[in-house]
């Protein structure tokens, strides 16, 4: 019996296999929602080729100044925690890319010279691929703060299985993307660099108190695997390994979903999903209040 579960797939660098795993985990589930949170370079749509059912523009409020009302009192420049405002002579300058849209300046301005105006940040799309519900966000070029777009993307509440394809790295975007996850699946390459990046995301999920495990991707039999060594020496559960396979790389380069094309990949990802469900259930038994 499948229960509601949100799994985030993440890695410290790009190209380790986040989308490969997320797409296939969602594809083998009977009913799932795939959410591509890598809004700076979403690519899940290349595999699901979803029928887009809705597209919504996400906006963010930014202060706009009416110079004729500003008397240069400097309340706003003094209050802004991000130094997003400067007063030069009688001209109030606003720096949108530094502004965090907190609304303090517009609230405090005694002359109502500052007002919040919604400005486009990106779009959030919903679509369908077979039994998989598809969602992604596309960040507008030239914008600098994607966290609100990820928040908008994760606003919908879902049942059954949700697979979150996280942005790469271990910064703000990733923290936001995995904030609602019940379980984090870390993906790592068998290189020194891969192990270093694994350590970074492992630290992040530990800080956030998320149950997690690693899947070793692109493994080569008999070759050293620094990521595996890291996992063993840091008590990080290894959920399996996906050997380097030219056929898989070819399918991926053609935008095909391996579990839909080859039975043994369907079996592999179904088994992986089952293991995740079991570990996540064990973790929630251990920490029921999480």
């Amino acid at each position, binding site marked *: 019996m499948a229960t509601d579960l949100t799994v985030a797939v993440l890695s410290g660098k790009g190209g380790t296999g986040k989308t490969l795993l997320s797409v296939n985990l969602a594809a083998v589930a009977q009913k799932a929602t795939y959410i591509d949170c890598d809004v700076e370079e979403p690519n899940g749509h290349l595999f699901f080729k979803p029928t887009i059912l809705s597209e919504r523009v996400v906006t963010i409020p930014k202060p706009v100044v009416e110079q004729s009302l500003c008397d240069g009192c400097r309340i706003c420049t003094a209050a802004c925690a991000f130094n997003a405002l400067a007063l030069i002579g009688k001209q109030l300058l606003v720096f949108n890319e530094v502004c965090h849209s907190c609304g303090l300046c517009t609230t405090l301005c005694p002359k109502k010279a500052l007002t919040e105006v919604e400005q486009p940040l990106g779009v959030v799309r919903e679509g369908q691929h077979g039994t998989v519900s598809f969602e992604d966000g596309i960040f507008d070029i030239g914008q600098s703060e994607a966290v609100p777009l990820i928040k908008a993307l994760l606003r919908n509440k879902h049942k059954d299985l949700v697979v979150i394809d996280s942005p790469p*790295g271990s910064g703000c975007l990733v923290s936001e993307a995995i904030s609602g996850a019940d379980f984090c699946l870390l993906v790592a390459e068998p290189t020194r660099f891969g192990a270093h990046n694994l350590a970074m995301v492992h630290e992040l999920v530990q800080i956030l108190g998320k149950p997690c495990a690693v899947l070793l991707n692109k493994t080569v039999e008999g070759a050293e695997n620094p990521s595996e060594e890291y996992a063993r020496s840091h008590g990080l559960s290894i959920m399996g390994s996906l050997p380097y396979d030219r056929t898989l790389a070819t399918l991926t380069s053609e935008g095909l979903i391996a579990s839909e094309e080859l039975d043994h990949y369907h079996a592999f990802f179904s088994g992986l999903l089952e293991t995740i469900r079991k570990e996540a259930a064990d973790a929630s038994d251990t920490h029921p209040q999480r």
Partner: protein
Amino acid sequence: MIIAIPAEADSLDSATCVSFGRAPYYCLYNTETESSTFMTNLAADSAGGAGIQAAQDLVDQRIGTLITFRLGENAAKVLQAAEIAILKALNLSVADNIAALQEGKLAPLEEVHAGFHHGH
């Protein structure tokens, strides 16, 4: 006129700081009185927008010229709005950069960088 220079320490023989917005001090040199004062850069520890705040503080000190190695685009906008001349520093001490300016050896700063906002 007041000339501002980001400084590593609060003395004229200190090195010119490579950072503008996060420099620990600014030397303010008054060409009329030929005297210098050092201002602690309160913006240096800002979570963000250090260059904007530092530029605002220097504009408030009524500087006319800034000598710097580099400058972010936001700080440049603030300084340009205040019509402050921006000159490229040479790899010299604070005092020697002031001397170089007075000898006409400093060229205008040609490039501003895009800044280092948001450590994702």
